């Protein structure tokens, strides 16, 4: 069954050629094909395809209302697509629940940073740890030793990540006390706590001051060097140009172009979509 699914995924990858002109040797971590979603009479996403190569930082750009966030929602199945397929790590995932997709290693963040403001920064981090013994209430009562031991290990790991993003001194504060930029950092740090393969970042630089934007970019590059793959929606073109290996462009719910940042910058169709005729 798994082999069949893998073959199917490969088939999809082969069909991806018109848009995803990637060398065949680079394995694709995420492949979405012909995704469609309508809200009433409006086609928010219309036959959109996207590939994210393993180990890359892939950008997704487009004017406001292009359908980028809806595409994120479709990829993570927060919204069920009307049509199309999503293959992650060789497995179809469009039939899975959002939490199952996260468990498979694909984590998303939100356009407006959504930290759990009534929990502490550390609790926000610990929440994202996977497969903890203490997530089962029976184990809390009957395997307290194992629960406490794991909690301690997860706390150490969370502290390491918080330290790397400069939030460790805020660990015990309520997340609601963080500034907008710190919330963005916490959201990304929390996503890493899942130990994902792919992180979908929805506008990580939006509403963040330039110094913090630089920090966020440096962290993303570092984590990418450590083997993490990113798909990033971003309006800040400096961020896109400095981070991304490859950029997908959407306009009016459809694929418009794909290429390296430099190719995209010079693409007349893209310029037209952004600036008008």
């Amino acid at each position, binding site marked *: 069954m798994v082999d069949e699914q893998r073959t199917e995924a490969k088939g999809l990858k082969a069909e991806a050629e018109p848009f995803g002109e990637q060398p065949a040797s680079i394995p694709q971590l995420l492949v979405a094909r012909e995704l469609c979603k309508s809200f009433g009479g409006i086609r928010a996403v219309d036959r959109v395809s996207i590939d994210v190569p393993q180990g890359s930082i892939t950008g997704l750009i487009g004017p406001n209302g292009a359908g980028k966030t809806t595409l994120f929602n479709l990829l*993570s199945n*927060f919204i069920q697509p009307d049509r199309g397929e999503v293959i992650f790590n060789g497995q179809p995932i469009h039939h899975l*629940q*959002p*939490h*199952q997709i*996260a*468990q498979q290693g694909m*984590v*998303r*963040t*939100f356009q407006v940073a*959504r*930290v*759990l*403001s*009534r*929990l502490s920064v550390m*609790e926000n981090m*610990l*929440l*994202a*740890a*996977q497969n*903890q*013994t*203490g*997530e*089962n*209430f029976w184990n*809390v*009562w009957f395997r*307290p030793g194992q*629960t406490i031991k794991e*909690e301690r290990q997860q706390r150490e790991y969370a502290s390491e990540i918080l330290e790397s993003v400069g939030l460790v001194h805020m660990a015990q504060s*309520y997340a*609601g006390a963080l500034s907008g930029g710190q919330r963005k950092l916490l959201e990304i740090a*929390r*996503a890493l706590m*899942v130990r994902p393969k792919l992180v979908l970042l929805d506008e990580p630089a939006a509403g963040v001051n330039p110094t913090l934007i630089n920090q966020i970019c440096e962290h993303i590059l570092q984590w990418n060097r450590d083997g993490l793959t990113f798909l990033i929606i971003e309006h800040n073109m400096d961020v896109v140009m400095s981070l991304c290996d490859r950029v997908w462009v959407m306009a009016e719910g459809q694929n418009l172009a794909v290429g390296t940042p430099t190719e995209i910058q010079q693409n007349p169709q893209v310029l037209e979509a952004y600036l008008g005729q």
Partner: protein
Amino acid sequence: MQGYVVSLVIFTAIFAVFGLGLNLQWGFTGLINFGHVAFMSLGAYTTVLLSLQGVPLVISVLGGAMVAAAMGLLIGISTLRLRTDYLAIVTIGVSEMIRLIAVNEAWLTRGTFGIQRFPLPLATFNPAIPIRVGMIVLFAGVLGLGYWQWWRWLKQHIRQVPRKSLVKSSIVAFAYVGSGALLVYGIGATARHLKQTNALPPLGLGFGLFTATIAFIALYVWLARTVLPKVAEWSAGLTVVCNLILALLGLWIARFAITAIYQYDRNPAKTGLMFVAVLLVGLIYWALEKLVRSPWGRILKAIREDEDVTKALGKNVFWYKLQSLMLGGVIAGIAGALYAWQLTTVFPDNFQPLVTFNAWTIVVLGGAGSNAGTLLGSAIFWAYDTITRFVLRDIVPLEDSRLGAFRIMVIGLILIVLMMWRPQGILGKKEELTLGR
């Protein structure tokens, strides 16, 4: 007096358990359950019906809890994907449906005639003195653990406060609370005298009492806003004094309870029930405290705040909400068994929606998301019930039927004031406010 205190302890324990179930569902998970009494009624009916068939009481209670959990499962499967306000509507509907089934399915529930003469826990038990002493030790142990927890909480609150300022502020707070209590007593005694001697017409007495109460509240609020803040660390002093008074009051009540256990044969049914109810409160409180401080509890709190984020981090939100609803149902089912034993008759009318709202009052009063707050809320609720039942009758110039409505009106007023002044409840954390998100 002793009999009344025992009965009061039982009611407080039953509603503490009942409230703990609701607090798990709403306080920690954010599930608005306006039909909590449905779990209680299923627990009560199942327990008494099974025990009437000769099933041992422990198994009957477990059966009742399981049936309540099964109803939680049914409600959950059909409604937990809906928004919270829909869940509120469905739960209130289900609780009324269960009550109406109990009224109409007389072959099973004996309808409005109710079920009587069912076995009660430890009712035929007549322990020898050494066993009674053992029971007292166990009872005192639970109480002691409770006091220890309380002390730890209090210590944490006053840890940062310098000893000297704490003593000074406690003396001021004691003067404030003590003079307030004396003044309330004075107003009450005067009104009682006036009512007994018919010195004033009812309208005049009512007006006088109303004016005196408003003047008292205005004076003490003014003092709290202007005079008290002049004393350093006044809130810590007030916390210490209030906790000390409550702790002493608790010990005074515990004295009656312990005497009742020692004189077990005087009223075995009630004493046995009190013993069982207090042990269950201790056990359920401990189990819930373990849970809410674990990764499991953290997921519930995350769901309360933002379901999408919790999903995005790989947690099966639906499954955890279902667990919370079912576990809260199990706890309410156990409260139902205790309630049936306390009332000794089970009528459908025992399970009116008002019972659910009593639990809501308790949880809101104590502080949503705080198990200790729920215990305190239940104690305050029943203390209020007792005081107003026996004291107001002698003071307020109203007939009995109007007095009942008046008492509920005052509860409503207290809740409104509490929501304005301290929306997180007495022990709730402002930063973790469940209400008014």
